[in-house]
């Protein structure tokens, strides 16, 4: 049997996942926890085969950061990242951590257990793209990587000068990107933009 560790702070979602594992003949629940920071400890004696890891867990602990630590010492443990947030960088971060799969709770048509089966068969299962989110007149797929970097910095309350230093670009380049973003979205200022981006969870700087 495949031992599964569930890391999920929403009681309802956790119950639903546990119920699916209980129904399965291949998987068995090893433990179910709310805080991603405890996941590495749960894996220490080498009894976990698969982790279903939420990104935003109890006490604001990041499932992605926990996954990176676990993979460093236990590369054989398969990890599937789960989230309901359309944050554009999560897929990229999950890949960078070496996670084996990624599953959107609210988007897409693939069932979680199907993703589990494919991952346990050695596949890397990722959605093709982040869910498309409407931001003003534009949609999230129309932003470039650099524009996302700038929006992320704005969402963290950085000033233009600080953004230039953080991203190692000139102040004029920062202004150029911001002008382009505002033109695309039709917003009057960056605060309207940031409010929309954060409200729709396209950017979550803490994770």
């Amino acid at each position, binding site marked *: 049997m495949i031992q599964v560790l569930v890391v999920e702070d929403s009681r309802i979602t956790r119950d*639903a996942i546990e119920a699916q594992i209980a129904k399965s003949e291949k998987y068995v629940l090893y*433990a179910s*926890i709310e805080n991603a*920071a*405890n996941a590495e400890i749960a894996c220490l004696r080498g009894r976990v085969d698969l982790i279903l890891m939420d990104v935003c867990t109890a006490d604001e602990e990041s499932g992605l950061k926990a996954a990176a630590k676990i993979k460093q010492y236990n590369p054989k443990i398969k990890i599937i990242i789960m989230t309901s947030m359309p944050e554009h960088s999560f897929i990229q971060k999950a890949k960078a951590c070496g996670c084996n799969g990624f599953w959107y709770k609210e988007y897409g048509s693939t069932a979680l257990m199907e993703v589990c089966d494919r991952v346990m068969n050695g596949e890397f299962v990722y959605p093709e793209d982040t869910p498309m989110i409407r931001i003003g007149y534009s949609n999230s797929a129309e932003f470039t990587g650099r524009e996302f970097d700038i929006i992320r910095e704005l969402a963290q309350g950085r000033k233009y000068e600080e953004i230039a230093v953080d991203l190692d670009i000139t102040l004029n380049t920062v202004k150029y990107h911001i002008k382009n973003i505002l033109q695309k979205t039709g917003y009057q200022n960056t605060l309207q933009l940031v409010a929309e981006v954060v409200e729709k969870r396209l950017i979550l700087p803490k994770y």
Partner: protein
Amino acid sequence: MKKNTSAKMIKKAIDSYPGGICFSALDGRVILVNEKMNKLMLELTGHTILNAKTAWEELTNFANNGKAEKLTQSWLPKDTNNGDEGIQQQLFFRFSDGLIWRFEMKFLDSNTVQIEAAEITELYRLSEELYENTIRLQEMQKRQKTLLDSIVEVNLNKEILAAKMHIHDELGHCLLATTKAISEESLAENTNTLRKSWNSTIRDFSNISTVWTVPDSSLQSELMQVAELIGCKVIFLGEQPKSRKALQLLYAAVREALTNAVRHADATELAVKIKQDKQRYHIEISDNGSVSVSSITEGNGLSALRQRLEQEGASLKVLCDKSVSLIVDIPFNLDEPQKGGRT
């Protein structure tokens, strides 16, 4: 074209200049002054410029006289372009006609001083607008940060709401189907279908916890349960911190110590001794691991823990005396973090 320019022509030229201008010697003797400057000074001081040095002192100590008002706001549009061309002072006045004038004094060379007056009413209006907008944006930015901090909680509530709506729909469906079967007198025929629907809805109900949010105590209880799961008992001695922030730091340290003790020393027990004085908690975390060490190389985990603790004003020491112990000091007052950079 005439080669020589007469004094009269120079005077005529500077009189046609729309701003005020005055050139003087270092002691204030006026070399050249235009009509506009004299007119402005007359309104401000009651006389034209007799001595530029005295006139500037009068402007510096100006008291509002009903004809003009001296402006001192921090956001006034100061001209800094000529900053290194000579020592510069700037004064601002609003005249009775509503126009704003900026007076600027600078040393042209070691013998000559220039006083220039420029009308900046539009620039003043825009600077005032910019200042008000900056204040408004700063307030909006604060609200934005608060929103960002609570976004995860908002999302959790959204998930809960979605689940509640699902149960509401299921319950409504069962009630409608049952009502229909009763009104159409087809209850007997549909008994099995209705029973299945009701059973499924009741199962959904039984899965809902009455506690929706993660309780504070979970910080400790979940860690203890996970430690037990992997065969390492965590024993706390002494009173634990009261504030949530201090508890979070304590448990971050316990997690790191537990991970290292099990991974590197195969420990089965971890002791956390907590003492406190008037200012701080003093915590010592040690294990019963089988490996004896005289020194360790600090890896990513310990470095990250040290960084997190120091950012919050706490500190970490690693003691190697056969076994490894972590010594953590957490001040009571964590609200004033000793951060080096931006948050």
